């Protein structure tokens, strides 16, 4: 099922833990200061006394208040700057996994570089990471400014065209963490989510090996799936999507070579089950109105064939 959204104060990685720590320090100080101010206000307002106003004494109290504020702020500044430094201890770390994250208008394209160009894994919206290993994300934007943010792993980092930037994340426990684009990027900014799937090293390597294989050849497909593949290549799908090992090689839309292995569809908006896959293929605009995926009106049988073919792309 779809994981609930991440909670910034329930960290699952070293960076988010550091941020949560800084939050609790600031929150504690803020709570104390607020209680003091409200107490002063109530004590002053609810007990009208005719006490003469001795001006200099009150001014000295104001000065004391000012000095206390200044020292508190200096303390908070130290906490903030120290907290900021520990965010990228990964610089010198070894065996760092590098992934290129490309922000597109309203979905995420992920590239796992391989030893050779044909070994490169191209997937979308679901970032598989090995548990315990630092992951260097190279953030690139192809169109407008997006912002990569997984509350449980790290703070957000903007993807600005012309300013390629990097950020480190690391998951200390296996699990599925939901992320969301945090910088307004157009009509469907609201449904531009993604998942970070942290799994042990061996299952991550198994996943990577599966992703490196091209799509199953025609012979291995069932009759219905084979008809679906024909529809895929003769219809509108081939103009935008790529299925490695077939003629479909367009890169405008997400790579569908292993679409069935993904748990969600439409940038984390729909669970990847048959009727949602059918609804998304037949009329994407009903799920994400304004997204760049046009509706594909087909007869019921054609839809079944196409969906069967897509579900064969494990």
């Amino acid at each position, binding site marked *: 099922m779809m994981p609930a959204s991440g909670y910034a104060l329930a960290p699952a990685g070293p960076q988010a833990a550091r*941020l949560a720590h800084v*939050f609790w320090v600031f929150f504690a100080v803020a709570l104390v200061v607020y209680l003091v*101010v409200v107490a002063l206000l109530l004590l*002053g307002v609810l007990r009208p006394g005719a006490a003469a106003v001795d001006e200099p004494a009150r*001014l000295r109290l*104001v000065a004391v208040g000012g000095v206390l504020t200044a020292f508190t702020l200096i303390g908070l500044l130290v906490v903030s700057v120290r907290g900021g430094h520990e965010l990228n201890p990964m610089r010198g770390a070894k065996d760092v996994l590098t992934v290129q994250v490309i922000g597109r208008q309203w979905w995420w394209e992920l590239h796992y570089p391989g030893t050779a160009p044909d070994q490169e894994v191209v997937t979308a919206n679901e970032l598989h990471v090995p548990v315990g290993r630092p992951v260097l994300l190279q953030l690139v934007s192809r169109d407008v400014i997006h912002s990569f943010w997984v509350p449980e792993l790290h703070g957000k980092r903007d993807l600005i065209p012309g300013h390629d930037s990097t950020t480190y994340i690391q998951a200390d426990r296996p699990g599925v963490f939901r992320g969301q684009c945090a910088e307004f990027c157009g009509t469907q900014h*609201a449904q531009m989510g993604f998942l970070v799937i942290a799994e042990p090293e061996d299952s991550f390597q198994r996943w990577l090996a599966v992703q490196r294989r091209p799509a199953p050849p025609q012979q291995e497909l069932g009759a219905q799936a084979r008809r679906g593949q024909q529809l895929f290549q003769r219809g509108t799908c081939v103009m935008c999507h790529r299925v490695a090992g077939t003629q479909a090689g367009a890169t405008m839309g997400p790579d569908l070579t292993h679409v069935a292995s993904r748990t969600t569809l439409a940038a984390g908006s729909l669970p990847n089950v048959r009727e949602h896959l059918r609804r998304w293929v037949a009329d994407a605009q009903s799920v994400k109105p304004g997204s760049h995926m046009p509706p594909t009106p087909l007869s019921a049988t054609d839809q079944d064939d196409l969906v069967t073919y897509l579900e064969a792309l494990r």
Partner: protein
Amino acid sequence: MNEALAATWSPGRGLSAWLREVRHTEIGKRFVVTAFLFFAAGGIEALLMRLQLSRPASGTVGPDLYNRLFTTHGSTMMFLFAVPVMQGVGTFTVPLMLGARNLAFPRLSAYSYYVYVVGGLLLYAGFSLRAGPDAGWFAYTPLSGPAFSPGKRMDVWAQMITFTELSALATAVNLIVTIFKLRAPGMSITRMPLLVWAFLVVAFMIVFAMPAVVVASSCLALDRLVGTHFFNHAEGGDHLLWQHMFWFFAHPEVYIIFLPGLGMISAILPAFTRRRVLGYDVVVLATVTTGFVAFGVWVHHMFAAGLPQLGDSYFTASSLIITIPTGLQIFCWLATLWRAPLRFATPLLFVLGFFVTFVVGGLTGVMLAAVPLDLQVHDTMFVVAHLHYVLIGGAVFPLLGGVYYWFPKATGRMLNERAGKVSFWLTLIGFNATFFPLHMLGLHGMPRRVYTYLPGSGWHHLNLFSTVCAGVLGLGILITFVNVVASRARGRRAEANPWEADSLEWAVPSPPPPYNFAEIPTVGSRAPLWEEPSSRGVVTGLATDQREVVVTTLLDAAPDHRTILAGPSIWPLFAAAVTGVGFIVSMFTPWGLPMAVALGVPVMVGWFWPKGKPTPLHAEQPGTKAA
């Protein structure tokens, strides 16, 4: 004598007199009324947005309309309500508090109002034609640029910015010169009321901050219309240039909105505590310090953009330091309130509401200043909660208190106290219940500006609760609107000084006559009306057949010379019309600007060419030899 003055200073009756109006009391009231109408429009948009967010995946409002709604809500509240309403309060109160008969440049204040109205009408004409802006009130490029915002939507936003900033600049120049040169004799710099100090600092911030957004929006409009490359990284431009230029303006702007609120508190407190605000020098220095430091904190809006860490740490420090002056002012007010014989009228309630609300916003502001914390909560509902706490808590609460405080002076009628108290409590409870849950939503990962969210995201209950309470907040503010409209005609009659306040504007009858002061008063202390009347002097010998006022020196306000202020004139309206036509046509073709200059020259000549009977050249300077 008063009839002669009234005949000289009043513009007459009828529509043409209404359009030629230059009295600061009238123009100030128009600014405030128009701004509150836009506040109502912004409020309606906010309720629509809350309705859409009350349920996950609800179809009430589609994504395109929602994006237009939140952009128009933000732009309306920031540019068409917050700054203009403070301009209005300043235009109305500053001359009265200084003992002046009008602003230094009366026709410029008329021009400022008309240009503001043109900007407001442009934005709402666009919004009603489905051409409202849809890229957020700070319109980051490249989304707001030519490639990703087709049509005229963002051009409407950019030109509206130019109009409202032109209006703010004109009012700022007017206020500064009035405060410097037209103070009542004896009102030295150290005897000026604290609200006037606030408006002086705000006016200087406007002079140095607004050009940044005029340049930024002009560069954006040029990029979209004629294809310049300010924000095209492939041709040498840079998207961060937009963010730097915009936030260099926008952070001072939020202080431009917030400082008059503090000034109003310093004006309201004496009347209800029977004490002068403690630490006059501390409050003045704090206001001036806030004015300067506000220009050095803008990068805290860009911590997530990946700028070098050393720079971010500097801006963390400067963003933390800016809380000290405001903190000192709050401590001074707490000391003033300390065990004072209080009179719990509505204005004081709103000031107390300020303390309870704004301090929460200030503290979340301190949290947002820290880079590691900001990386988690930037661009989320946490920031939405923070900005509403500091803007509604910091500026709208004192403003509502100011409306209840100065309404008798502006209209001669008291606002209903019972309705005021009900409105206060509904507004306070409704506001806190609406916006406090958004802090939790932000920490739970709900980003800003999302038109919907998934059923499984866990944000449903808090959003529903927030929407319901938004209705309560709306009701609270609606009661004040009804109170104002009802009391306008049927409120209790108000005498000159209903609150026994200390500043000069309470020395004139309510509503003030066209000439404000029969004789311009002289001032001997910081609270002129609390001195015994016998010791208050007046200025005599000013002509009553001309709009003559006394100009005083800058520091000590010693009388320096007499001058004639401009009278009612239609040219500000024509100049605003030409500015409007010129800029709106330049949205479609670059020839709009040369056309505006061509139309503008005759209007400027009409505006400046001397009219009426000339005083002969060498009348009173026999000394100079005939040329």
